């Protein structure tokens, strides 16, 4: 008896507390910028695809929901021929972002991905690729890597000496 009265009293007191429930979806909640939501592929500051198809995200993924195929353009720049994430399997752990050596794959603070058909949760590269650099505005992998690509020859990357002239006899 006493317990019931105490319960009723507690509930009565809650009427005067501040409300935490918000009227989603009419009212949007605050999502921190480092939230691990919908995955995107970003572009480097020059507008090129950042993904170099190294397969590290795919191997880091604990549910194996990322798959891709590497290919190259005529100047030797690597990019994914296809890039597929099966969001119906994704657990948004962020390991792919952590593994990515080029800041290409990033998790965003969008979580509104509900679908009636599971098949629609399979995202291809066209669905994933955004037009900007995302959270990391500066980094451009190919400016640092030693590989020559279109528009960047050997020795033109950061901290690189010009290519060695093998015919030079000076010590």
């Amino acid at each position, binding site marked *: 008896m006493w317990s019931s009265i105490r319960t009723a009293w507690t509930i009565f007191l809650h009427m005067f507390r501040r409300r935490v429930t918000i009227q989603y979806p009419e009212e949007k909640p605050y999502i921190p910028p480092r939230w691990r939501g919908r995955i995107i592929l970003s572009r480097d500051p020059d507008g090129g695809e950042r993904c170099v198809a190294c*397969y590290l995200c795919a191997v880091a993924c604990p*549910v194996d929901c990322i798959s891709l195929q590497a290919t190259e353009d005529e100047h030797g720049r690597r990019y994914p021929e296809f890039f597929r994430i099966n969001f119906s399997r994704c657990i948004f752990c962020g390991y792919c972002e952590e593994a990515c*050596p080029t800041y290409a794959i990033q998790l965003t603070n969008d979580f509104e991905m509900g679908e009636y058909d599971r098949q629609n949760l*399979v995202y291809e590269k066209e669905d994933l690729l955004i037009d900007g650099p995302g959270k990391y505005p500066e980094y451009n992998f190919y400016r640092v890597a*030693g*590989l020559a690509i279109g528009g960047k020859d*050997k020795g033109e990357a950061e901290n*690189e000496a010009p290519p*060695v002239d093998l015919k030079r006899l000076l010590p």
Partner: protein
Amino acid sequence: MATIFIDQERHTARDGENLLQECLALGYDLPYFCWHPALGSVGACRQCAIKQFKDEHDTRGKIVMACMTAVREGARISIHDAEASAFRASVIEWLMINHPHDCPVCDEGGECHLQDMTVMTRHVYRRYRGRKRTFRNQDLGPFVNHEMNRCIQCYRCVRFYRDYAGGRDLDAHALRNHVYFGRHADGVLESEFSGNLVEVCPTGVFTDKTLKRHYTRKWDLQSAPSICVHCALGCNTVPGARQGTLRRIHNRYNGAVNGYFLCDRGRYGYEFVNAPTRIRTPLMRRQRGEALRAATRQEVLAQWRALVDRGAKPIGIGSPRASLEANFALRTLVGAQRFHLGVSDAEHTLLESALALLRESPARVASLREAEGADAVLVLGEDVTNTAPMLALALRQSVRQTHMKIATKLHIPHWDDAAVREAAGSAKAPLFVAAPIATKLDEVATRVFHDAPDEVARLGFAVAGAIEGRKAHRVPDTSDATQALADEIAQALVAAERPLIVSGCGSQSVELLRAAASVAAALCAKGHSAQITFALPECNSGGLALIEGKRLGAAIEALRNGDADTLIVLENDLYRRAGQAAIDALFESAHQVVVIDHTASATSARADIVLPAGTFAESDGTLVNNEGRAQRYFQVFVPNGDVQGSWRWARDLLAAADRGREGDWANLDAIIGACAAAIPALAQIVNAAPGAGFRLAGQKIAREPPRYSGRTALYANVNVHEVQVPADPDSPLAYSMEGYPGEPPPPLIPWFWAPGWNSVQSVNKFQAEIGGALRGGDPGVRLIEPAGADGGAHFDTVPQRFAPRVGAWLLIPLHHIFGSEELSALAPGVRELAPQPYVALNPDDADMLGLAAGELACVDLDPAPCRLLVTRRADLRRGMAGVPVLPWLHFAALPAFAKITKAEASRVEAE
């Protein structure tokens, strides 16, 4: 054996071996770069530094290079010593100074020895902030990609390429931190073994260019133990597949066969599996004259059933490039009396003779490893570089046996590579090459002899006679020079401990095989432990010879006279086996032609029913190599649609014909068992690999590495629901990442990997002793062991001297590593390096005919004349001419005499 102490722990190690090798064999992880088990030690990279102590009271010790220090009784060393560890970490930091930030875009990533060693030494952050040295790359041809920035100057590439494989066009250029490994200019690497640079290079300087086009990381490759199908040596391979296409071939270590290396044909010929010429669905035509159209499995089997009901009388033609199981299944389907081998008439004779000679020979049939250890070699009439490339690599090592003898005398350990080479200088073990034309092995040969195949055979008989020393066995009409050469060869062979006689089917001469067998028999009769080996034409020629069957001519005859009306052809393009007219007639006299093959050919175009077979990557089976070693290959991936192993198609045809329990094979084990029971010579093939029921701790062996990625996304675009893992009733391997996590038995190793060792160097962890047999024995069972009895000499068959003819030339077949083998020639890279059709003539003969190099000659070949570009070769004797063996040239029975004339100019223009 010696007792040594590693970090206070007592171990036994092989006395005199180097400490690095023994530490690795004992299971320690010690980083290294320049050492390679096949290349020895040079102590160049300073990476394997350890501490060595004088005795148990010595606490200071000194740093030594493990690879340059021999194991001594009571030696005390420390791997984990703080100073040694710091030394190793600083060496790798220094090696990494110029290494580019490339791993994500580097094909070596994930199986990179440099990555593994960097992790092992715990070098994590780059302190160097200066500028990195860069190089320009070279175009090294269709097989090897060059990215010189990544080089850490370990010199392994040139040590393999130049010292081991005998190549000349790759070298170290420039000096100090500018040392550059490449050619003098862009161009195709000349060595037939250039592809091994991909595995020898500890980092990504040399990578697989064919893999680059459909790149996949090692951890994403579904692999299975396999056997190379591009020549008869049966090298062990690891093909890797992803998404239903074959991505690359890697070496699979087999201590008795290929060891650490593969030839470029074996490594890069795989692309025929992905070629557009593949047959992917059953095809059939209702009537002759109609076009072939795709059909369902039920339709073709119903058509076959209707044929059987009408009382069809089938005969079968097998194939030297199909497995034992496929050939046996066809033999069961048509009956042993109606089974034909499916090789040309000449080749049939050659195979029969080769098998008979090997069986009755008192000499042991040498494995590739044994060929490496031979200390005197006679090559009779075979261009091994082009017909059995890895045998040529083995023979290049055999000439180093003298180096080892000199080193032993001087107390230099055999693994101390630079010292051994310095001490030995240009000394080499005797290697005699007698062939119709100059071969690449000539450059390491003691003496070479170029003459007609019959003359080469006569030289062989002369050598045998000289060894026997009996007057009766002297070869008549031998010139003094030839007899002197024969005496010299005989002397060298008799003086050797492990002489080896090499011959083969390349010159299409039975006399050559008999001569080689006679030399081996003569040596054995004198009490020497001689060895013999024959280069056979195709991957299962040996197996086909063991199965036995009728000649191709008998099939033509049976169809013509009505004994048979239906022809079943297994994995064979008959237009490569006999003249076009004969094969056309064969097809016309058959009411129905059924072809089981994986690749479209002129033969499959003539078929009424075509059944899509699996290639080596899509089926299981057993192949018998030239050593008589039966080795099993396992399916790598499950093909789409109706593609299945040839033996399964033969079984389905049997079932449709409703022949009771005959051919009621549930899985591979069943047909292997039936084959072993039916053919006594093949009784042992059951033991080539564990059967399908084999389990380790109740588990199968996974074809996919544990980190295989994309399982739930790879086919999600087709259907988001994951498909079930296909079952494999035929083998103890699973199409899955799940399986026994430990070490599988050697015939079932699907890939080499050990914790901390992601690169191919992990093979060290699978060997009983480094460079020796795999733990559990090397895979394969030998089916031919030497006959104890004397005999095997055939002095009664010495051929007559070669007599040149006026106006006609003896045409001999010339083999090319790239192009002469049917399947690899379908791979774009191999095709690119294949020669244009040509006719080779002695310059004097060419002048006589008024033919300059590059002009067209009309060669009056049987059965049809053809017009070929002229190549002048001074090493070809007068009266002889050579034409290349190329699948796209029509069949000609060679060697044969043919007229050669200058093609008329007007006709040249017309062409």
